[in-house]
C-alpha cells in the first residue's frame, strides 16, 4: 500500500507485542523446530496476509499447478520422445537437421520471452486465446464448454512451459537411442536376422528409455520452479504465482509451505521414476 498506515501506527512496544505473539523474538532454530513439529501434524501455520491456513491456500492452488505442469509434461513426452527417436533413426538426414536446429532454438529461448511472444501474437493481435487466468467468469457455461474454456486458457502457458523441455528431451532421447543402437546386442539382434522394426522398437527403443525416466523425475521439480515465472506472466492462479507474491510481501509461512511442497515434489518425482523403471527394465523387478 502506498501510504502504508502501519508504519505510522505501530509504536516500538506494539511491534514488540506482535513479535512476541508471532514468536519472532525466539532464536531462529527454535522457530524452525517449532514450525517443523507443527508442519508434520499438517499445520503449516497461517498466512500473514490472508489469515487463512497455509494448507488451505496451497490446496486451493495445487490442482491448478498440477493441471498446468501435468499437461506440460504430457506434451513433452508426447513430442520430445518421438522427435528424438526419429532424429536418431534418421541420423544426419534433413529431418534430423531440421529437428536439431529447432531444438537449439527451443533450448536457447527463455520461457518468459516465449510467453510474451505468444501473448502478443495469439491474444493481442489475433485474439484467439485469452492471455490471463484459468477460466472465464460471469457466464454460466455447460460442463463441456467449461472444459473447453479452461483448455483455451491452458494452451499458451502449457506451450511456454513445455517448449524448452521438449527441446531438451528430444536431444536426450536422440543421443540415448543412438548409444543403444551402437551396442553389441543390437548388432547381435540384427545378425540373428530379426526384423529391423523389432530390433529398433523392442530392443533399442525400450533400453533407450531408461535414462529418460531419470529425466522425468528431474523434470517434475523443474516444471514447478518454471511455474513461478510462467504462472506470473499468465496470471495462472497456481502455487508458483502465490510463491512469488508471498516472497514479495514477506509472507513467510506461505513461502515455507510452498518451498516445502517443491521439495516434496522432487522426492515424489524421483519415487515415481523408480517405479517406472520396473515397467521398462525387468532386471530391476527381479532384484
Amino acid at each position, binding site marked *: *500500500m502506498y*501510504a502504508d498506515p502501519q508504519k505510522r501506527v505501530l509504536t516500538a512496544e506494539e511491534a514488540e507485542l506482535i513479535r512476541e505473539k508471532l514468536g519472532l523474538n525466539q532464536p531462529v532454530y527454535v522457530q524452525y523446530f517449532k514450525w517443523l513439529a507443527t508442519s508434520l501434524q499438517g499445520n503449516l501455520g497461517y498466512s500473514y496476509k*490472508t489469515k487463512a491456513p497455509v494448507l488451505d*491456500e496451497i490446496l486451493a*492452488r495445487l490442482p491448478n499447478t498440477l493441471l498446468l505442469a501435468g499437461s506440460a509434461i504430457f506434451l513433452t513426452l508426447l513430442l520430445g520422445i518421438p522427435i528424438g527417436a526419429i532424429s536418431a533413426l534418421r541420423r544426419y538426414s534433413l529431418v534430423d537437421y531440421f529437428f536439431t536446429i529447432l531444438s537449439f532454438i527451443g533450448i536457447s529461448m527463455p520461457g518468459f520471452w516465449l510467453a510474451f511472444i505468444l501473448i502478443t501474437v495469439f491474444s493481442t493481435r489475433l485474439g484467439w486465446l485469452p*492471455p*490471463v*487466468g484459468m477460466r472465464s467468469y460471469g457466464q454460466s457455461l455447460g460442463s463441456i464448454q467449461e472444459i473447453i474454456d479452461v483448455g483455451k486458457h491452458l494452451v499458451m502457458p502449457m506451450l511456454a512451459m513445455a517448449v524448452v523441455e521438449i527441446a531438451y528431451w528430444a536431444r536426450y532421447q536422440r543421443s540415448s537411442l543412438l548409444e543403444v543402437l551402437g551396442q553389441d546386442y543390437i548388432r547381435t539382434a540384427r545378425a540373428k536376422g530379426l526384423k529391423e522394426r523389432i530390433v529398433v522398437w523392442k530392443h533399442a527403443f525400450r533400453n533407450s528409455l531408461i535414462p529418460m525416466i531419470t529425466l522425468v523425475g528431474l523434470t517434475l521439480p523443474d516444471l514447478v520452479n518454471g511455474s513461478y515465472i510462467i504462472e506470473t506472466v499468465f496470471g495462472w*492462479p497456481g502455487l508458483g504465482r502465490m510463491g512469488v507474491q508471498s516472497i514479495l510481501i514477506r509472507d513467510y509461512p506461505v513461502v515455507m509451505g510452498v518451498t516445502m511442497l517443491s521439495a516434496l515434489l522432487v522426492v515424489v518425482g524421483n519415487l515415481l521414476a523408480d517405479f517406472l523403471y520396473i515397467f521398462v527394465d525387468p532386471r530391476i523387478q527381479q532384484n
Partner: protein
Amino acid sequence: MSKKRLILILFLIVSTISLLTACQPAEVTPETITIIETVIVEGTPQVIEKEVQVTVAVTAVPEEPAEEVGEESDRQGGVFTWGMPDEFPGFNPILNNNYTELWLFGLTSEPLTWGGENYPTELKPILAESWEVSEDGLVWTIHLRQGVVWHDGVEFTADDVVFWANAIQDPETGEGAAWWRPRFETAGVPHTFEAVDKYTVQVTTAEPIPSLLNQICVPLIPKHYFEENGVSNADMANDPFNTEINIGTGPFKMVEYRRGEAAVLEANPDYWRGKPYLDTVVLRVIPDPTAMLAAVQSGEVDWAQVEPQYVPQLLQNPNIELHILKMDSFRALEFNVKKPMFADKRVRQAFMHAVDRQSVINAYVMGYGEIPDYPFTHVVYGYEPLPQYEYDPDKALELLAEVGWVEGPNGTLVAENVEGVPAGTPFEFTLDTPPRYQAIGTVVQANLADIGVKANMLIQDYPTWLAENLGKEDKPYDVVVGGGGWLGSDGAGYSWAYYAGSATNSQMSYYNPEVEGLWAQVTATDDKEVKGELLREIAVILWDELPMAPLLWQNWVFAANPKVHVEETELNPNLFALFAKPETIWIEK
C-alpha cells in the same frame, strides 16, 4: 503471356486492393500527438525529456451516444470484469484496509456515513439517515435507514451497529481492527454505542468530537452471522467471513471466491437505492502489470488500473478508453529536520528550487502527475494554490549560500559557517529510496549534483527499511523519498507528518507548537469552512518551513472498455468509493 490473362491478373490485383481498403474501419483517423518521453542518458545519471511525435488512431466518438442507447431497459444486465492488481487479504471490512479489498467493499459493504479518508470529502448519509448532537456535544443520536436488508435477507438494525462498534473496540479482535480502534475512543475511553430502538443508535463520547461521523466510516458487519456461528472477536480473522466471503448491504453480494483467481459478485436485487444495472461483477486477480496490460488489450477485463508507462501503447488502441483520475496521493522528500544539515528551512527551500519537479513527474509517471503548490493534497479543505517554488538552481545556490554553504573545490558545496556542521564538510547525504521510487531518486540526485550537492541513493526494500527505522527516537535517515496517500480532507491523516505531539512521532522529526495549536482547533470544530481556514493557515506555515518537500501529486490511469459507462463525476480520488454509485454502471450490449 496473352493480353487477356494480363488484364485478368490486373483486375484481380485491383479488386484485392479495393477489398482490403474497404475493410479498414472508416471512423478511425490517424492523428499526430506530441508526448513527452523521458530518456536516461547512457552512462550518466542524467534524465532528459524529449518531445516525440506519435501517430495514434483516434476513434471519432459519435455525439451523445449515451442518450441514444441509454434507455433503462437497454442498460439492464451484463458482466463487468475488473482487474485487481493484488490478491485479497480478506473480506471482513473491519479487519482490512488495503486497496484491493476497499474496491471490493465499495461494491459489497456500506458504512454509516461517507467521510474520512476512504470516501469523498462531503459527509454523506449512507446507512445512517440523519443524526443530531446534544448541546454539550457528547451524545449523538443516529437514525438508521429503515428497511435495509443484509445480503442473506436479515434486516439491518441498531443491534448490528452496536455489535460492529464493540468488535472494533475489542482489543481481542485481529490486528486489522487496531487501525480503526483510535477512532472509536477518545483519550483511551471507548465511545459507548447503545441501541435505543430498532432504528436508533446513541453514541456517547467522553469528550466532544465534532468530526465523529467522519472518523467512524468503517463498513458494517452483520451481528447475526457472528452470533449464529459462534465466532468470537478473536476468531474473526480466521473465520470464513474473512477468508472466503462476506455479507454486506451494498449493491452487489459476494457469491464466490476462488482463491487467487477471482471474486464473483452478483447484483443485490433488494438494494435500497435500487437494483443495479449489472448482473455480475467479476474481480479478477492479475498481479503482474504486463499480464494486466495483456488482459486489458485483449478485452478480458473491462476496467483496470494501468501503469503510466503503458499509456502511449494504450492510446493507440481504439478499443480502450482511458480515465485519468487526480488521486489523493503525493510523493515527497521527507527531511529529517533534526540533522544539522537540514535544520535550516532555507536548505529545504533550496531543495525545492533545485529539483526540477516536472522531470520527476515525467520520469516517475510519464507525465501523469501535477506539480504540488500546497503542502497537503488538493482534496484538503481550504486548498488554494500557494506561491510556487519555481525550478531555479541559482536561487537554490543563493539560499544555500545564505545558510553558509559555499562552493568548494571541484564544484561541490562545503560548509563555511553552518550551525552544527564542522567547517569544510562537503554537502553529502544519504537519500533513502524505496525501489519503486528509484526513478524519483535518480532525478533528484542528478538535479542536486548540478548545484554541487551529493546525494547517495540508498535503495532498500520497504520491510528492511522499516526494520531499521521503526519507532526510533533519533531517526537514522537524512532524507527519504516518501510521501503518502488517501489521507483525507480534514487533515487528520497528516498527523504522522506534521503534528504528532512530539518530534519523535513525526516522520520528519518536526515539531512546531504553533502548528500543533492550530491542529487542536481544527479537530475541535466540525464546520468545514472554519476547518478550511485553519488548515490553510497551517499550510502557509508548512509551505514556508517545508519539513516535507512535495514533489508530485499522482494521477491514476484506468483503462476501460469503451462500452462501459461510468459517469466521470462518479469517480472519486478516494480508494473505497472509486465508484460513487456502482449500481449505475452499465455496459452496452
